[in-house]
């Protein structure tokens, strides 16, 4: 009974302080809003309008048709025409173009004979995404109208695109963003909430009262669980409104997965707070954890494409597991029970982090 009163006391105090801390309050709503807009609109692996130039040494009807076809693909945007391959190279070196199209002076004959490459793409391959895009351009068909189109070469593999037929990056980004934002804000808020009391000297008073460690931690965590849920609603509803990201699975399953993830992050925040002495240290430690999370969890790059070592590291990050959960439920409409392994992983993190945090937290100053 007394324990409940004390938990409620800490809880009540925390809400009062939160309602007066405008900066934190702004961050609760502001971070999801800004990040959603930033990532939703800016991150686009579906590349269009790469700057390009061309050198057409044939200048025939067919070569002009060929350049027009390439431009019509919208993958590249032709900036200028130059005279020869050397000038293309110069532009590429200067970084003014990403792709150069070189049409040799025997272009028509090459097309006729179909034994050699008809043209050359000079690609700035330092960005591998651009290189990948250039590959798409090679499938643009080139032949004379009078010519018989070349027969399909052998059997082809057909691609069927599930879950994201329009190939929009936002569909993948928005559910992933839920995890990223929750990681950033939840870990940081709890870590700072406790360290701030140390810094301001409140902790010396607090640890001299009968309040128990676990009561203090629960009182500190619960307000942030609510905040995490508010953020979840903001991101998913704005994602649905602005980027038409569907929620195919059950809302209840989304809620449950998110609750598990929020609790895991809050426990981690508490653990950080037992190590950090100042709010600045708490912030640094949070970012030390946040950066690998955002890079390795599969949010930015496909998990399977990473080297084995990176995959192993990713497996010990809660965000990796949450990404699989949330993408599974939101995009594929998966039932949460089929993803129980990811839930168990999150649960294990939480138990370990919370146990360590309670064990490390001392009601002492030394």
């Amino acid at each position, binding site marked *: 009974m007394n324990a409940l009163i*004390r938990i409620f006391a800490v809880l009540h105090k925390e809400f009062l*302080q939160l309602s007066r801390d405008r900066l934190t309050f702004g961050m609760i709503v502001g971070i999801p809003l800004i990040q959603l807009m930033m990532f939703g609109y800016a991150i686009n692996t579906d590349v269009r309008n790469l700057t390009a130039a061309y050198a057409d040494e044939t200048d025939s009807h067919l070569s002009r048709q060929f350049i027009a076809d390439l431009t019509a693909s919208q993958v590249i945007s032709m900036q200028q025409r130059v005279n020869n391959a050397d000038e293309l190279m110069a532009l590429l070196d200067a970084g003014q173009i990403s792709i150069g199209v070189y049409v040799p002076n025997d272009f028509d004959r090459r097309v006729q004979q179909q034994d050699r490459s008809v043209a050359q793409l000079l690609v700035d391959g330092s960005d591998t995404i651009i290189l990948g895009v250039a590959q798409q351009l090679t499938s643009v068909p080139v032949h004379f109208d009078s010519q018989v189109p070349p027969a399909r070469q052998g059997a082809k593999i057909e691609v069927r695109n599930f879950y994201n037929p329009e190939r929009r990056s936002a569909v993948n980004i928005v559910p992933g963003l839920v995890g990223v934002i929750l990681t950033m804000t939840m870990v940081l808020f709890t870590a700072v909430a406790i360290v701030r009391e140390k810094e301001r000297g*409140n902790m010396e008073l607090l640890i001299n009262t*009968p309040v128990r460690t676990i009561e203090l931690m629960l009182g500190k965590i619960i307000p942030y669980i609510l905040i995490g849920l508010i953020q979840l609603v903001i991101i998913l509803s704005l994602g649905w409104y602005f980027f038409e990201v569907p929620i195919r699975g059950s809302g209840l399953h989304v809620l449950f997965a998110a609750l598990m993830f929020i609790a895991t992050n809050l426990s981690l925040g508490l653990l950080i707070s037992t190590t950090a002495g100042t709010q600045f240290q708490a912030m640094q430690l949070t970012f030390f954890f946040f950066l690998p999370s955002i890079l390795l969890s599969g949010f930015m790059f496909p998990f399977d494409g990473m080297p084995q070592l990176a995959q192993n590291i990713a497996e010990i990050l809660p965000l990796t597991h949450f990404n699989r959960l949330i993408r599974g439920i939101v995009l594929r409409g998966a039932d949460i029970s089929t993803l129980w392994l990811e839930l168990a992983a999150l649960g294990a993190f939480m138990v370990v982090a919370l146990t360590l945090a309670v064990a490390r937290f001392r009601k002492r100053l030394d």
Partner: protein
Amino acid sequence: MNAPAISAHGLTRKFGSLVAVNNVDLEIPAGKIYGFLGPNGSGKSTTIRMLCGLLLPSAGTATVMGMDTRQESEALKQQIGYMTQRFSLYEDLTVKENLRFISEVYAVSRAQRKARVEELLTQYNLREKERQRAGTLSGGQKQRLALAAATLHRPKILLLDEPTSAVDPQNRRDFWETLFELAEQGTTILVSTHYMDEAARCHSLAILDRGVKVADGSPRSLGENIDMRVIEVEASDPNRARLSLAQETKITSITQLGVRLRVLLPKTLPDALQMVQHNLQSAAINAEVREVFPDLEDIFVAVTQRRRAEVTP
């Protein structure tokens, strides 16, 4: 006599190579105001923190209300009220919200909670400020709020760590009146200070110097027991008198207070008064010279000087 409210034996605390508190013995009777007098860094705060279980002693033991501070620190917390040196209530909560929070944390029963907060608001003259955020209070108001919070659960022991360092003289007088009322009701109060006048108000006190307890007793007995005599010199030209007396190697210290000089000499010196008179006459300085009873400052200078002499031979 009753068992002491606080007792400590060989209490020691080290921070790395620094010995903050060195082998301190304490015996503090119940219902009394006991002072810790000492300069900054003398180990007052560290001792108080060890007594309320916030710091573990490196060596030695302490019992408060018969409970060991190491093993029973949680049970002790209901008995101790602790006022930190730095204001440690929540500056972004109002006066009343702070008190309500403390009342809930100490799990005062629901019926009593409200009444107790109201009582304290009146008692500590905070009624008009109850809706004001604690961070915007003046030094005196903050101090009253902190004392109200520390006494909310009616502790038997109050540990006050330099409670008056940010408070004006009038507020200090009021504060001490409150302390005497609390002591009368049976609360044992341990208060650290570096103000001599405050130390003089305590029933008894310990003087701490660089982690070591160099003297203890009532202010009166401390004066009787020091091995120094104090000679007061009232001269028309105190500066010249001071320079002249400074030649005398047997004098322990000279302190100037306006036109008066307080001269400390070892008690073992047989004719100290004549020596001072003689010194001033030969320098042709007109002065009135008389022996006086040592005040706390004299005692403080005497005991710390003696220790310096021992430490640095």
